[in-house]
């Protein structure tokens, strides 16, 4: 399998303390552990089980994902920040891998 690729979309301009939309997605097959492959062999469970966003090192949102979540999980949420800083995004895989991405937020 190709390496999962995370992607984050932030608005062009962000104002201090004004909520903005964060869109996130990671490519991942999200194998439920219930499906069989074309040879009839059960495909073992492998999902992104946890997604965490931190702002300047402080956890802003944590999402627990379940096997019913479809492939390439997409998470969108609103947040506000008081000043410029760094947003860190982390996706935790069943196999122990952690995929991360950080975005510098510049407040206008």
């Amino acid at each position, binding site marked *: 399998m190709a390496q999962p*690729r995370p992607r984050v979309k932030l608005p062009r301009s962000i104002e201090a303390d004004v909520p903005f939309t964060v869109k996130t997605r990671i*490519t991942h*097959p999200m194998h439920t552990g219930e499906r069989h492959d074309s040879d009839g062999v059960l495909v073992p469970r492998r999902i992104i089980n946890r997604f965490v966003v931190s702002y300047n090192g402080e956890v802003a949102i944590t999402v627990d994902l379940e096997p019913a979540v479809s*492939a390439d999980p997409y998470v969108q949420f609103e947040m506000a920040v008081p000043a410029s800083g760094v947003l860190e995004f982390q996706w935790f895989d069943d196999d122990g891998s952690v995929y991360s991405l950080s975005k510098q937020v510049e407040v206008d």
Partner: protein
Amino acid sequence: MSKPNGKSGLNRRHFLASAAAATTAVSALSAPAVLAQGRPRVVVVGGGAGGATAARYIAKDSEGAIDVTLVEPSRAYYSCFFSNLYIGGFRDYASIGHSYGDLAANHGINVVHDWAVSVDRDARSVGLAGGGSLAYDRLILSPGIDFRDGSVPGWDLSQQNRMPHAYKAGSQTQLLKAQIEAMPEGGTYCMVAPPNPFRCPPGPYERISMVAHVLKQSNPTAKILIVDPKAKFSKQGLFEEGWQRHYAGMIERVGPDFGGDKVEVRPEAMEVVIDGEATKVDVCNVIPAQQAGRIAAVAGITNEAGWAPIVPHTMQSRADENIHVLGDASQQGDMPKSGFSANSQAKACAMAVRGALTGSSTFPPRYSNTCWSLIGTDDGVKVGASYEATDEKIAKTDGFISKTGESAELRKATYEESLGWYAAITGDMFS
């Protein structure tokens, strides 16, 4: 159609119809001026699914009563339809190539291998790049598509060897296939998909399927990135289901929600810049925004969007009743830009042209289209519809589409149906 002198209620079509119904003596006396000078002349520009079909049907059905010239620069035609299957390894290159030889030998069509570069609508003649000109009573333009300059910043035709479009079949298709096969292990193939409207709506996504099919075997850690300005695309549910089934984790599509509508390319660095963020790629297949083939604009019959509006009953240009426009270049309404559509339109056009020039009977046209796509081995899907001519547009009357979750047997049957269609349409164009 205007009335001659603005006085008589008898226009040319009615005149011909009544002439055909009259006695032989009267009809001979009342033949229109163009016929008096000899056989009426039809010039067809573009030897694809629209032009080759129209030329063949006019020549065949008029049984020599109409002089047909087909202008096409290429000596061999490589079909865009099924060119993705060549990329995927399901067809060899020779099997999508066709010759114009039988059109001359079997139907007496004058095949001229040259570029049409000008149209004098008043004199009714077409200028050729080689210097000659061809007079016509009816001109049929079926020039396909050209690309819109500047639609993908950083890309122009001078970059097509570094970042191929492969959206006109031939050497570009061979180049893209060679580049995909030469990708480094774990490398990235990127497609910059076009905005609507464009040739073959499912085409880019069938190509993705075929690229994935090749890479899954030869380079399974390779990645496929689609940068797409469109929120949705043709047969999306079917393709996404198939991609998950056959190529899980390999394909990522970046739509406008993640900046797919704000893309530029840097051919020298082999970079794709999505919403300001540069990504290094190994193959970059840029399919730019499209418009009617250039000769349509040169003839002055295109609109602001770059397409040629037509009269749905006859495929005549809205701007010039002596010119018909077929296929991708036309703006006709609900039909997708496809080889099947162009072939269907060409038959209606051929009937209308013969009716106008020889008085043969005409009937309300019926149009149809089906677009097959191959997602993986024996996994074919299709979408199609029937259409009728209204005063406003070619309007869809009913349609059908493959369903998600279909059985492997049905998908295989759908694929085999597409093979039959390919043999039939290429026979309809070239035999």
